[in-house]
């Protein structure tokens, strides 16, 4: 633990060296087995852990022995070593061996049976975290895209703004025209009424004059008929009637 404290404190101390020394010292000061080589931004995590054969032997061991002993080398080593230890009774079979065999079989069964599920669960936890943050990112992207489209629509609307004014102007002009024509019609009707009145007055006056004249003429004519003329006209009418009756009798 104290060494860990020292390792944590090392970068701070090393940074205070002169610039020519501190860069190299920072890169050189690293913890054993596993610290980054440099205090630079962390490298990305590898997707999968180190390749492993039979659950606990790293693949690099097999690659290490391959040039000299080929593919079966490590297995020969393992078998030979085990047989040597057992036969020379360096490793004695005792009760712990039995217990070890049983325990290891239980462990291997559990790993084979539940391993993939547990791995999938661990991946799911990480993926849920990623999905949560991705949803936020995607939602904000979508919102921004919608905003862009609406902005474009608004820009188009602004571009056709002049047409609206023209249409409105036309409407107003039409209304004014209609109004003007209505009023013209009204004026025409009123004037016509007045002129009709004058015409009717004239007709009435003329008829009255005519009637009056006809009456005067009839009165004078009736006054001027003497009794002698009256008898002569009646005798003529009787003669005409007789002639006519004769003519009518003839045709019948």
């Amino acid at each position, binding site marked *: 633990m104290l060494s860990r404290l020292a390792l944590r404190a090392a970068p701070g101390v090393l940074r205070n060296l002169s610039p020519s020394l501190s860069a190299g010292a920072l890169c050189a000061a690293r913890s054993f087995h596993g610290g980054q080589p440099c205090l630079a931004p*962390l490298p990305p*995590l590898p997707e999968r*852990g180190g390749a492993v054969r039979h659950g606990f032997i790293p693949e690099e061991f097999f690659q290490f022995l391959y040039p000299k002993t080929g593919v079966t080398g490590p297995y020969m080593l393992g078998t030979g070593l085990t047989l040597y230890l057992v036969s020379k009774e*360096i*490793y*004695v*079979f*005792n*009760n*712990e*061996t*039995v*217990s*070890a065999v*049983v*325990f290891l*079989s*239980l462990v291997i069964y559990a790993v084979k049976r539940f391993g993939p599920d*547990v*791995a999938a*669960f*661990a*991946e799911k*936890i*990480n993926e849920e*975290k*990623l999905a949560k943050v991705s949803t936020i990112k995607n939602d904000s992207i979508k919102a921004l895209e919608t905003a862009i489209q609406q902005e474009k629509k608004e820009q188009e609307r602004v571009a056709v703004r002049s047409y609206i004014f023209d249409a409105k102007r036309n409407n107003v002009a039409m209304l004014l025209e209609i109004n003007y024509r209505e009023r013209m019609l009204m004026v025409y009707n009123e004037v016509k009424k007045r002129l009709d009145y004058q015409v009717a007055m004239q007709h009435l006056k003329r008829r009255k004059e005519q009637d009056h004249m006809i009456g005067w003429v009839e009165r004078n004519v009736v006054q001027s008929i003497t009794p002698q003329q009256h008898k002569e006209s009646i005798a003529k009418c009787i003669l005409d009637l007789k002639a006519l009756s004769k003519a009518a009798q003839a045709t019948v």
Partner: protein
Amino acid sequence: MTLTTNLNLFDQFLVPKLLGMSLLIPAMLLTTVLIYNPQDRWLSNPLTTLQSWLIAKATKQIMTPVNKPGHKWSLMLISLLTMLILNNLLGLLPYTFTPTTQLSMNMALALPLWLATVLIGLRNNPTSSLAHLLPEGTPTPLIPILILIETISLLIRPIALAVRLTANLTAGHLLMHLISTAALSLMTTSTLLAGLTLIILTLLMLLEIAVAMIQAYVFTLLLSLYLQENV
């Protein structure tokens, strides 16, 4: 491997020595090697993710009933739980030494923690902690006797905690030792009986794995219960 011969059944519980130095402290600290440090990353590898998830679940499970001032104890209790679970489970491997089979270690864990809860309770709200000595609804003639009984039960708690853990694990290990010895010696005489004994040993192993985890959880849970009463 067998560098020592077992003269009696309890020799498996002796603290291992290397060149005359006791290996007790490295044995206790072995579990720290297996715990990943939280990394400076947002998404970590699956093992670290699983470990963080398990610890978060255990913390929620144990610390939810405790009220807010008691959450100061969460680091202590959860690290205790993790250490006990790992120690117990690692002890099931062959040829490993389980520190939690030693009564000394369990007393060293149980007594100070229990005493801390009692002292906190007596210091902060003494009436409430003393009131726990008398359950509600007792008939009046029984009160003096009941207070005595409750005091004794309070004082026996650390011993109970320690002995429970020690006894469970020691008994389990002993049984495994015995049955595997029986299986080994039966293999030469009657293979069928050895097979049956191996089946019993398998079931006992499963039980031991469960007991290892349960005992660690019970230890921590009881401490959190004592904390709930007193904090």
